[in-house]
């Protein structure tokens, strides 16, 4: 049953992983950049100014400005429901293959249970991971005002530093 479910849903699994990877990557990356920028960011300046101005900094700025990370929680569940959840049983019935599936040596209840467990549990795990990354990002973003204010009294505001990926890339290029 595990093999059968994998064989039937492997394409969907690939798509879900690609999309979740993109959204999760965006979120984690933006959180990291904001976290780097926060200590030298005065509360009067939007944190967007503190993000560095190179390619990677701009990507992070774009992610923050267009709230790309939020799509993870809003769009992905809807996509998963429409393209994975709904066809789970409906597609079988549409093609008449439920009569094939339900007359093998596995009862209908077990068939449904295995499908639900094997498809829904990994989806929930991915959703939970993305949700966690967003909480991290929002926390970092939320700490900006207090951290920024305390840093202003402690040290002078310094102009934005190049972002870490940019530093890595430029070092490799040298």
């Amino acid at each position, binding site marked *: *049953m595990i*093999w*059968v479910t994998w*064989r*039937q849903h492997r394409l969907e699994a690939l798509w879900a992983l690609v999309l979740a990877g993109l959204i999760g990557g965006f979120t984690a990356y933006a959180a990291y950049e904001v976290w780097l920028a926060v200590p030298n960011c005065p509360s009067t300046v939007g944190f967007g100014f503190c993000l560095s101005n190179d390619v990677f900094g701009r990507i992070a700025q774009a992610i923050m400005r267009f709230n790309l990370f939020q799509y993870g929680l809003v769009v992905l569940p809807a996509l998963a429901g429409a393209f994975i959840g709904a066809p789970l049983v409906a597609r079988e019935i549409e*093609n*008449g*293959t439920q*009569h*094939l599936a*339900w*007359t*093998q*040596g*596995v*009862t*209908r209840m077990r068939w449904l249970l295995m499908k639900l467990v094997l498809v829904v549990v990994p989806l929930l795990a991915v959703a939970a991971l993305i949700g966690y990354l967003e909480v991290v990002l929002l926390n970092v973003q939320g700490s900006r005002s207090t951290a920024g204010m305390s840093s202003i009294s402690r040290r002078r505001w310094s102009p934005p530093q190049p972002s870490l990926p940019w530093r890595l890339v430029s070092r490799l290029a040298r």
Partner: protein
Amino acid sequence: MPAGKIAGLVGPNGAGKTTFLHLAAGLLTPTAGEIRVFGRSPQSQLLLLLDRVGFVAQDTPLYAGFSVGDMLQFGRKLNPRWDQAAAVERLRKLDIPFDKRVGQLSGGQRSQVALALALGKHPELLLPDEPVARLDPLARREFMQRLTEAVAEEGSTVLLSSYVMADLERVCDYLIIITAGYVQVAGDIDGLLASHHLLIGPRLSRDARLNGVELVKAQHTERQSSLWIRGTVPPLGAGWREEPLPLEELVITYLSVPGAGTLPRPELEEAAS
């Protein structure tokens, strides 16, 4: 159902052939009455039933995205009694490519894959539901031939539904006619053919009495009367003759008179149990 025989289930569209097969395969529960497969109600021990019954659904549904090899793997993973070697051998003999997607197979090949999938678990009862309805005459014959070969090897019982009499006549030993949800005729095909006769003679008056003859259907034109009778042919009067009554005609006769019917008498075995 006589064990070890190939039985044909015929009836007009909507008569309940598919419903009956679904009941036997445990896909449906009866709303009234009961059905027993291997002496048990299918729903009570579904898993036990599923291991011993091979069902080929109408239009032989298969996963179009699966390759033929995947389809066999599907059977192997889901059936504890699966015989991979036999299934592979069966399809290899038919030159069906294992790496081709099921969706790209011809209708005939597809139905052979569905049959191999149902036969892979060595079913004691095989239930193909109109397996050849969408096939061309050559593929039909090929399918039926493979089916009879397989059944002869395995010794399983088959209940096959179809509305094409020619398919059934060639392979079946036993015939069940159902109309509007009721069994109208059930019996050995040889027995049915031997006991039914078509007599044609001069026109009888509508209320003529026929002594010692069991009448299935009577049809009168201005000049002659046709009588479809069951039982032994009585001594024929002047002007009467007996016409051959092939199986297809016999079935159509019964279907045209839904009230008429003949069921086998309970056998001693059954009566004792």
